[in-house]
């Protein structure tokens, strides 16, 4: 079976003044069409390098990155990207910001059609009525919504999200998780999400990949079967707690703070009761 995204045996090193700095060493990743993979790992382990490889912004020293069984040799219009920094262009309105990718990849599309497409997406994420505002007039969460619209406006097959919710407060972030899932149901894409938030990874993704410390290899892969709509309550089940536990242990292994044995099984469905004082002193 061919996967939409197939990364095999990728090694890469950056050239620095102190000699080569290996960042990736044996990276494996397969994402089926329509899948949503989250990538977690210690800071500086090369997660952003991974996004640049998939986007075709750079090529690996060794190994292959394939989209549709085809080797990625350069940027392609079938990829959309969103970053932690929403990078909206301050001199454009929100609508024109969202239209930007269409100006580049679908220049034949009429302006009216481009506008309709952008308006449609903005409506989906709840930004109706903000089309003519400038980015500086919007809150951080709203800007990130607009940024998501821009990354999807040209109907990319692959959406690369590099910590898109990292700079948002917890409540806004959870709102945006839901927005992202809604978008995915309306605008099918195959997603790769780089994140530091383990809850985010198990809530959004159907596959979580743990990368080791630099030079990174694929250390652990967790599949999360999905059925039916997701709610935030799913994060507070014993099953979710167990998944988080395993992932946390894997991160500690990656950071070199825990031995590489499997996490102590905690299948006990009874949640551990924390003693809460009845009256505050």
């Amino acid at each position, binding site marked *: 079976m061919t996967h939409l995204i197939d990364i095999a045996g990728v090694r890469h090193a950056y050239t620095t003044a102190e000699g080569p700095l290996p960042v990736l060493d044996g990276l494996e990743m397969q994402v089926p069409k329509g899948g949503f993979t989250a990538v977690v790992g210690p800071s500086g382990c090369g997660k952003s390098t991974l996004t640049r490889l998939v986007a075709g912004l750079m090529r690996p020293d060794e190994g292959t990155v394939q989209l549709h069984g085809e080797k990625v040799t350069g940027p392609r219009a079938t990829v959309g990207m969103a*970053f932690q920094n929403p990078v909206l262009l301050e001199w454009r309105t929100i609508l024109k910001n969202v239209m930007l990718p269409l100006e*580049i990849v679908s220049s034949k599309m009429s302006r009216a059609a481009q506008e309709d497409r952008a308006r449609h997406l903005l409506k989906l994420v709840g930004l109706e009525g903000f089309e003519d505002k400038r980015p500086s007039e919007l809150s951080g969460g709203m800007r990130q919504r607009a940024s998501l619209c821009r990354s999807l406006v040209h109907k990319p097959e692959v959406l690369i999200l590099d910590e898109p919710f990292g700079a948002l407060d917890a409540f806004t972030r959870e709102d945006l998780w839901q927005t992202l899932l809604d978008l995915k149901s309306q605008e099918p894409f195959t997603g790769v999400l780089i994140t530091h938030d383990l809850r985010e990874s198990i809530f959004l993704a159907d596959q979580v990949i743990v990368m080791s410390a630099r030079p990174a290899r694929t250390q652990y892969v967790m599949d999360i079967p999905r059925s039916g709509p997701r709610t935030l309550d799913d994060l507070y089940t014993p099953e979710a707690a167990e998944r988080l536990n395993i992932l946390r242990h894997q991160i500690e292994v990656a950071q070199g703070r825990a031995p590489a044995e499997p996490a102590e099984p905690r299948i006990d469905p009874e949640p551990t009761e924390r003693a809460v004082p009845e009256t505050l002193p």
Partner: protein
Amino acid sequence: MIFRKVGVPFAAMILFLIAWEVLVWANGWPNYRMASPSDLIPAYERYWPLFLEMGWQTLWRTVVGLLLAVIVGTGIGLVMGISRTLRDGLYPLLVGFNAIPKATVVPIVALMFVGAHDFNTVLIAFMISFFPIAVSVSIGLSTLEPEYRDILRALGASQATIFWKIALPKTLPEFFGALKVAVTLAFIGTNLMEIVSPHGRGLGALFDSGKTNSDYPLMFAVLLALAALGILLYYVVVALEKTFAGWAERPSG
């Protein structure tokens, strides 16, 4: 709103003139020590046609020098913003060139192109004002966050598209900031040449003739005329900035 934009600056100017008048009057200074605004009115009356002619001379040479500075400064800034090697190579040269007091360059240029007064004046106005523009454009380009490039590069956009759609507009606020500095600098350049070179024209030459004839009110009148031209050109730049980079202005709370 109109009152704050127009009324307040005018009131400030009138207050300044009154304070000046009072200062001279209270100290009993004769007009060869410090002319007062009321001394200037006869000077303007007497030489008004000359002021118009010389003012125009100064203005057009300054504007041409400034345009040249914009073109060359933006060009140098582009080159330095895009290539690190060229930036490292050009910076010391530029800084060294800028560190030379232009007053010392004026006689050299006046000798080099003797008689070409218009050309010399424009040249000095240009030389004194292109530096801030070059530096600001290069900084604007080199500090462009990589993500801005990446969102377009990932779509297969060419370097030229990235430049027109992102790098250039993003640099505009810095560019206009530098242009405001360059406007006043260009006036200094024009006047240096007009004052120093023999048989010069423009307000600088008028100032010089006031000096030789010991007509002190005329000298002060020229200074005020220069200030007025400077203000005029500055607000032209402000208007351009509002048109092309108004988005950078945040609504004040």
